């Protein structure tokens, strides 16, 4: 029940396709999706493996609530060893692809080896085939999507694909499904590309059932009611999307600006949700066309946007494809492509977002890497000769979009940008200018202004990330209760609690955004009525903690230990210059020892034997 209890295993080297029963003992300990797939992954993959070698595996995994009527029950995750970080990678996506995979009859697909030639995987229920992709290799995500849909002759097929960036190993290339939803972070697209796998297309007609239908409807209805009545999930997100945060975070003095030189961006309003809703002069339309839900989502935070038809990004040949509506700016993208680079041109950012969707790029890492390059350029470390003529000054919108175009196809200076900011800054001798943790660019919250996020970034198992413990909820929005963003007290416990709960949510098949409104008290009954096994809040917290420690162990074995639980010096040593956080640095040293202690880890950040045995690891 809820699980299909079946796994699809594809050996890309040999072309062998097999199915096997889901390990239900593991399902009871790791639930599904992030947790369960990571269990499979860590059991099967050597931690020291080169992420871009055939020995790495790539898992597409759904959760037990994926493909049910639970609100937001449409998620899937991609689990692999990330090439950007060398750590465990787990990237979560919405859209409609995940449920379709499940309706095809599988909880997860494990991809092994490397295909001798470009292929795509076609899953139509039990008809599973590897098909030649030579003719779509070298095409963008959008073109591949159209080509595959036409080839399978089924408009209802759902596709997850990589762009040229993934083929060429851009280290933050992502896997895009449904044209504008992405398993975005840590370079999972590059792993897919390294396997010569261009895309997966799925279409299924098998249903998902639950253990106790009546109880499930009661629990999911109650959950939907909570989402509808909550100010964030019921009003803010549907109307403004995650972009509702742009002005809020800026006013909190936690807006990482110009590669974290500043914590307040003077152009924030120009690129905010409010700006997206304003009619523009040229055609009287707003940037925002409509909001769109992912499968099963009753929040519907997704943005669908158009670019101002008179904007410079639409001038010239070959721009027709950007002249209609497509997936628009989310907060993280608006920040990375905008605030981080100092660009306040909403249409340029929307265009850059379209490029990210079209080419399969993680906008966070892309924007942050361009920001680092701008820092290098402004410092005089790199020049026009190196950038190929790109004038990478902070605030230069033309240079920004050109850089995005080049990175999408990994050409010119775009190939260097495709390495990510850590490798880029190291290459030019200024590693301290890379705003990364464990090699991954951090997102849209400056830890000097939101202290909990410093610990979040430092300890995240997949490298810097906001989605591993979104303490912004508590520190800024007051969910579930307000804490002071400028202090470090109590943040270790907060981070641990968020990390464990989020690991459970990410393993269920639902979206972490529900936790603006839901606590595990809302979620547990939905899982419990869907799945066998007595899923209480306590069990979910234990599963979450188990997952966190399992990921940590894998990273330790991969050589990523406690010494990597840190932040860039700029955050630790350079105080915020203005705004509410003026004079503050990220107080990581005040939180990290307590965090280790709460985790039951040694002072160097190693899980103790006692902790591991308590969690059954």
């Amino acid at each position, binding site marked *: 029940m809820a699980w299909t209890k079946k796994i699809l295993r594809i050996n890309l080297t040999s072309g062998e396709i097999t199915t096997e029963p889901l390990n239900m003992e593991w399902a009871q300990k790791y639930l599904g999706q992030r947790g369960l797939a990571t269990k499979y992954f860590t059991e099967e993959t050597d931690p020291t493996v080169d992420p871009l070698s055939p020995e790495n595996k790539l898992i597409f995994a759904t959760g037990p609530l994926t493909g049910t*009527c639970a609100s937001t029950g449409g998620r899937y995750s991609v689990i692999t060893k990330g090439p950007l970080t060398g750590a465990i990678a787990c990237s979560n996506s919405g859209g409609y692809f995940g449920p379709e995979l499940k309706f095809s009859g599988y909880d997860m697909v494990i991809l092994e080896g490397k295909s001798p030639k470009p292929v795509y995987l076609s899953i139509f229920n039990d008809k599973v085939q590897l098909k030649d992709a030579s003719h779509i290799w070298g095409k963008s995500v959008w073109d591949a999507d159209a080509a595959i849909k036409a080839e399978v002759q089924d408009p209802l097929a759902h596709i997850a694909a990589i762009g040229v960036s993934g083929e060429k190993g851009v280290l933050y290339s992502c896997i895009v499904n449904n044209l504008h939803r992405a398993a975005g972070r840590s370079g999972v697209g590059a792993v897919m590309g390294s396997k010569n796998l261009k895309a997966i297309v799925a279409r299924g007609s098998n*249903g998902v059932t639950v253990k106790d239908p009546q109880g499930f409807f009661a629990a999911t209805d109650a959950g939907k009611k909570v989402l509808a009545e909550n100010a964030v999930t019921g009003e803010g997100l549907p109307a403004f999307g995650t972009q509702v945060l742009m002005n809020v975070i800026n006013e909190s003095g936690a807006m990482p600006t110009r590669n974290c030189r500043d914590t307040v961006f003077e152009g924030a309003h120009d690129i905010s949700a409010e700006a997206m809703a304003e009619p523009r002069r040229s055609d009287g339309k707003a940037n925002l066309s*409509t909001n*769109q839900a992912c499968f099963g989502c009753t929040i519907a935070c997704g943005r669908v946007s158009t670019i101002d038809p008179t904007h410079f990004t639409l001038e010239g040949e070959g721009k027709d494809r950007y002249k209609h*509506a497509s997936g628009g700016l989310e907060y993280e993208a608006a920040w990375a492509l905008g605030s981080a680079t100092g660009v306040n041109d909403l249409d340029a950012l929307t265009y850059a977002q379209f490029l990210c969707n079209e080419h399969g790029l993680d906008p966070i890492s892309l924007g942050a890497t361009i920001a680092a390059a701008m820092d290098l350029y402004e410092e005089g470390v790199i020049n026009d000769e190196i950038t190929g003529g790109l004038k990478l000054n902070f605030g230069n919108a033309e240079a920004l979009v050109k850089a995005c175009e080049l990175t999408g196809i990994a050409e010119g200076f775009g190939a260097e940008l495709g390495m990510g900011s850590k490798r880029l800054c190291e290459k030019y001798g200024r590693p301290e200018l890379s705003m990364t943790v464990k090699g991954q660019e951090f997102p849209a919250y400056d830890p000097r202004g939101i202290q909990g996020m410093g610990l979040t970034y430092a300890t995240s198992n997949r490298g810097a990330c906001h989605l591993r413990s979104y303490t912004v909820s508590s520190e800024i929005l007051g969910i579930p209760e307000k804490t002071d963003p400028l202090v470090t007290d109590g943040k270790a416990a907060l981070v641990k609690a968020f990390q464990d709960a989020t690991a459970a949510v990410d393993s269920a098949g639902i979206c972490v955004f529900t936790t603006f409104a839901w606590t595990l008290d809302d979620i547990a009954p939905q899982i419990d009525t869907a799945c066998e096994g007595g899923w209480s809040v306590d069990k979910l917290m234990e599963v979450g903690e188990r997952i966190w420690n399992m990921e940590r162990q894998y990273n330790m074995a991969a050589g990523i230990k406690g010494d990597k639980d840190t932040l860039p010096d700029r955050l630790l040593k350079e105080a915020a210059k203005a705004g509410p956080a003026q004079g503050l640095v990220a107080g990581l040293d005040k939180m990290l020892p307590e965090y280790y202690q709460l985790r039951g880890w040694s002072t160097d950040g190693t899980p103790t034997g006692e902790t591991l045995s308590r969690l059954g690891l």
Partner: protein
Amino acid sequence: MQLALVIDPGKCTSCKQCEMACAYEKEQTFNPAKSRIRIFDFHEEARFVPYTCTQCDEAWCQQACPVNAITTDHASGVKIVHDNLCVGCKVCTIACPFGTINYNADTGKVIKCDLCGGDPACAKACPTDAITYSDVEQSGFEKMKAWAAKTDAAAQS
């Protein structure tokens, strides 16, 4: 006042809750492929359109049925397929100009929206009121019907 499914595409977010509710109601499984209502996504135009039987007055399906297996409930106007009578000849599926009555190979019968006996699951599941079960006269629903009436070989009485 006659109640009907009133669909306002402008409010639809394409969340597919209606498809799941319908499939569960009719097939006891979360399976959009078996839903009697479907959301069409027009990505480039930023429009989402829930689509199902309008219970049209013309009832081409009913007229075409050779064995009287489709009847109209006169109180609600809903067109109902009687499984015990449906032989599975599919004539209704080609006669319906909306394509909203379809053959189900698993059962050998045709399936269509029957408004769940007066309490449509899709409308209950819709989080944005894009689908409501309300007074027919209130919406553009009539326009759709009028347009569809062009399909007939002659005006209906």
